[in-house]
């Protein structure tokens, strides 16, 4: 319906930046003659014979990709104070987990004096524990381990949850019944005790493998997401674009994963950060309880050692708890804020205003400013 208007703005846009003469020619022709006349005198009005109106060079495509996946998300994210803080915190932890481990040396027993308080000794800025181990070094080195758990756990949780939920919702019938029953079992099973028992059983496989811990923790966590995705799928599969895809003879998994899932992206991404936070909480709890074996100290096992050494009853040992605690709370604040603001990045209506090269496929993009504000206000 609005074929002319977006493409004409597009061509004007291209005109300034594009050096490729071919595409300029094409777009110019498009501007002057509205309907191209076929040279062989065939049926001009048949929509099936219309070739794409202008060609895209590789550079165009890269610019669009950059615009859609890098520029627009970052510019939207950066306008939101939550995201600015959240992203900074997460990046800080990533840096600590990668560069930090190279800068800070691992610590050993009786490296320094026992229970040095923080900010008293320049060599041990965050203090030491009862066995003289540097707490800063413990925290930095465990960041890498925890981040590995977070990545594998979050990806596993969201991957399983989305796949199972999407297939159950799209297929319906027997497949839905089976998958939903399995999902319900996993929702009902108490997550933490299950992970505890499994962790005990597979302690050999887990020792020294943070990715395995992440996978283990995702076992009990994907159910809720799968159920939510399924119920959204039930409404989405009735949409006309799905019917169109089916009529075009697309394969089921192309329809589900390429056409429908992108619509669920906001939900999936928010859950990615939530799942990450959950992995941290549960992994630290398991290490704190001393159930999972560990080779190197991490935040949880530091807490465990502190509790075992009665640091809560001793004066002057408070920092032994506080250092890992601050590390845990800080990253989870970062993940929470990031999750809240990522919602807006993947909300197509908000992002349309930020992209320079808006694709004409979304004609509502510009006209819907009034509803946007409502969405944003409710979407926290």
């Amino acid at each position, binding site marked *: 319906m609005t074929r002319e208007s977006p493409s004409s703005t597009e061509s004007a846009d291209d005109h300034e930046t594009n050096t490729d003469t071919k595409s300029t020619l094409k777009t110019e022709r498009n501007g002057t003659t509205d309907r191209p006349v076929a040279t062989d005198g065939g049926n001009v009005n048949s929509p099936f014979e219309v070739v794409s109106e202008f060609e895209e060079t590789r550079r165009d495509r890269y610019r669009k990709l950059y615009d859609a996946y890098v520029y627009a998300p970052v510019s939207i994210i950066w306008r939101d104070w939550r995201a600015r803080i959240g992203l900074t915190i997460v990046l800080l932890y990533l840096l600590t987990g990668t560069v930090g481990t190279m800068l800070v040396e691992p610590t050993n027993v009786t490296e320094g004096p026992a229970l040095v308080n923080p900010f008293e000794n320049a060599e041990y800025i965050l203090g030491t524990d009862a066995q003289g181990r540097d707490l800063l070094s413990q925290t930095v080195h465990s960041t890498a381990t925890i981040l590995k758990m977070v990545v594998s756990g979050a990806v596993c949780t969201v991957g399983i949850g989305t796949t199972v939920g999407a297939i159950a919702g799209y297929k319906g019938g027997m497949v839905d019944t089976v998958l939903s*029953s399995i999902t*319900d*079992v996993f*929702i*009902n*099973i*108490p*997550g*933490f*005790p*299950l992970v*505890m*028992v499994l962790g*005990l*059983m597979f302690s*050999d496989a887990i020792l020294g493998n943070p990715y395995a811990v992440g996978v283990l923790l995702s076992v009990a966590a994907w159910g809720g997401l799968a159920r939510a995705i399924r119920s959204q799928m039930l409404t989405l599969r009735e949409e006309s674009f799905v019917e169109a895809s089916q009529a075009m003879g697309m394969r089921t998994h192309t329809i589900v994963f390429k056409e429908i899932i992108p619509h669920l992206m906001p939900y999936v991404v928010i859950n990615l950060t939530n799942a990450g*936070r959950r992995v941290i*909480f549960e992994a*630290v*709890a398991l290490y*704190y*309880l*001393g*159930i999972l074996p560990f080779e190197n100290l991490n935040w949880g096992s530091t*807490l465990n050692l502190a*509790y075992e050494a009665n640091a*809560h*009853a001793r004066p002057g040992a*408070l920092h032994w*708890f506080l250092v890992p*605690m601050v590390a*845990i*709370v800080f990253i*989870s*604040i970062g*993940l*929470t*804020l990031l999750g*809240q603001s990522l919602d807006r990045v993947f909300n197509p209506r908000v992002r349309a205003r930020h992209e320079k090269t808006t694709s004409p496929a979304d004609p509502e993009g510009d006209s819907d400013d009034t509803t946007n504000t*409502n969405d944003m*206000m*409710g979407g*926290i």
Partner: protein
Amino acid sequence: MLTVDWRVRRLGQAVFTVWAVLTLSFVLIRMMPGNIMGAMITRMTQQGINPGRARELVELRMTIDPDEPLLTAYGNYVVDTLQGNLGQSVYYGEPVTDVLAGALPWTLFVLSWAVFISFFIGITVGALMAYWEGGKLDVGLTSYAVLMGSIPFYVLAILLLIFLSYRYGLFPNGGRQPIGADPGFNLVYISGIIHHAALPIISMLVASGVASLGMRGNSIRVLGEDYLRVARLRGLSDITISTQYVARNAVLPMYTTLLISIGEMFGGSIVLEQVFQYRGLGWYMLSATHQRDYPLMMGGFMIITLAIVTALLLADLTYGYVDPRARRTQ
């Protein structure tokens, strides 16, 4: 599709879940490589009991016979468990059901208060945030909710223990009942119990952060409805609108969240009770894990599962009575 009443289907699903957990524990105990029974027998032999005798002892305690064919053993195990026989605790030498039955009320006491108070706070705060949406109070309270959601409850628990108990001595530093008081309905005992349970309950209040954000979202959604505009146009008072129109509709979806969070808290009680050395269900399950007292550990797992499945079943079955709109769609 067969049109079975949804309540029957929901009940069937709960039974299915319990069965699945039962089977899972059977698999873990009997069939896993390096399984629980093998581990227990080795452990006992190391303690100087001869292998034959150790085997008998393990059989006695686990209600699973390692020598029986798989299916017979499974059948006996299911029948035993359904009759309430969860085996015998290795450490305490008592039936698992007795040990856990003594611990369950304490956990329920702490958790029910924690759930009740945190939802009360969450709903109030959420309603306030929604009412002054976008204002200073909203921003402040949202930050509070985010912070609450980012603190694991056990971190708060340890901090409370350090400061309120060890540093300032306001609360006892562990245990579940006052020493020296007679158990029963007397003031000293009852107030002592509350005193001991106070810190665990307060630690669980971090759940109020998540609840308040949920309530805020619900209320804002209701506030945008057309019938609310009509109510204002009719000149109804603010109080009538907020209590009769907004609160009712916004609280309803919280009901399910509430019962689900009971399930989460049951899992969390393991860590919570360890921090405060509060001898409830979670404490016994954890100490059983450390002492490799597998019958007690798996028994605790079963009981927690039962509690959660029941809570969720109740939530779904009664939601129709709480919210008449849900009855029509189901």
